[in-house]
């Protein structure tokens, strides 16, 4: 299971990248993307997916 970023709504602020405990988020071609292979949905690390909790545009959602 993994999260993804809805690119059309992303403001490219980078807040999610700084919070992800697994460095699963990176900036590619004008928007941020989540690497589904690295994303753990923050399971066992935090009570909620960090990217979704910090995202101002509410565009980090379950893939």
């Amino acid at each position: 299971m993994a999260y993804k970023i809805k690119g059309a709504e992303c403001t490219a602020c980078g807040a999610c990248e700084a919070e992800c405990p697994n460095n699963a988020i990176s900036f590619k071609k004008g928007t941020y993307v989540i690497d589904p292979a690295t994303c753990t949905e923050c399971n066992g690390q935090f009570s909620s997916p960090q990217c979704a909790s910090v995202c101002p545009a509410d565009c980090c959602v379950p893939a």
Partner: protein
Amino acid sequence: MSNVVSLDGILGVGELKSAALTSKGASGCASSSCGSSSGPSDLPADVWEKVKNHPCYSEEAHHYFARMHVAVAPACNIQCNYCNRKYDCSNESRPGVVSEKLTPEQAAKKVLAVAQEVPQLSVVGIAGPGDSLAAQGNNTFRTFDLIAKSAPDIKLCLSTNGLALPDHVERIKGMNIDHVTITINMVDAEVGERIYPWIFYDHKRWTGRDAAQILHERQMEGLEALTSAGILVKVNSVMIPGVNDQHLVEVNKAVRERGAFLHNIMPLISDPAHGTHFGLTGQRGPTAQELKALQDQCEGDLKLMRHCRQCRADAVGLLGEDRGGEFTADKVEAIAVNTDDEARRLYREHVEVERAERHASKAAAREEVAESVAADVAPILIAVATKGGERINEHFGHATEFQIYEVGTSGAKFVGHRRVDTYCEGGSGDEDALEMVLNAIGDCTAVFVAKIGACPKEKLSKAGIEPVDGFAFDYIEESALTYFKAHAERAAQGAVQSRTGRDAVLRPAEPVARRA
């Protein structure tokens, strides 16, 4: 009039150059100015030493020195109802325009490029477009590191909502950042929950009263930690009528007790087109009179700042002007930069001399009024068209803003600025624009200009605002006091009625279109 040469003219900078460069897209006058009451007498010596060349913190410095913001911090950790994240953080900047986001390396290069073109540059700030300390403040601190290496004479400052501030106090101390601005809109979670829908703190999203309570506690903790470490802290508050307007009196008291040295109350700028929660729900901003009444109420021992322009997160220039368009990433890329600080040093030395003279002549003018005018004569408001150097040196038709002075027996005090569209675009005055000017300065007794056409002159007189061009190119404060003295004499003979005037309309400058 012996002193018609402006400071810019003497130094061969500004005037010509900036007029040409700011012709398009600049939001304010070529160089912003206002006579100032803020001098060494108002502030403790050590504070004055720190702020005297900082345009945002010292009213006087904002005539002479330029600041720039670099937009290296796009991420934020809270949501404000007056903010739309697609745009700049409105804590420090007007919504509606997206800043060019820079990497720390690009930002440091931009600073050097500007410092070389604009010797008035004394401060570089980081204010967003998000929160400068969100995302661990990584970009912010890296940028400051680079600037400290290449241009150590430039002061550094940062603005924050305060949520992450306690975590970074040690680092701020270590970096020799001596100015921090915290935006504090409430000291009570009940008020706070109407301003902040959520915050991200300790790896969780918090909402409602809990969110506001945490934010409040973190703000106070950060404020205390900074002031006790000897770092100057300015507090910004956004005045939101019906939400926190009266409450800001308590905020003022709370931040004063904790050692903030300046409190800057800014009007909410709200428009449905900005897409903010307040904009969409029809929450209005305050009128000029409401803002001034609150500022007057809060002005005690704590110096209030009234010249804040609510600049964009990537503003460049003197307050009231934005030369950001000259320094976009690709233009900076092409500029060859060096680290020579000679021009900036000479400029600062010159300002020191001019300042000393001005302090003496202002004091003399104040004394004269205090001696000759009865203490019960009510103060009046005067609008001034100026483009810098504390002089009345702008044509009425070219003014993009008017500086407002309150003049009375206790002296002349800068109390704010009012934006207008230029009345005279390419020579012909336009009726609507004149109407807007009348609205913007409707509460003033007189308007001081360097020059004015016959037609607007007549319309102003009809509206009860006396157009005055007799003080053209003179210093603002001394002229205002001279005018007030004459005004008091006329009033004593019953020749003029005291005037309460209409309320005035506050408006933001036209946003400059900029690529996202």
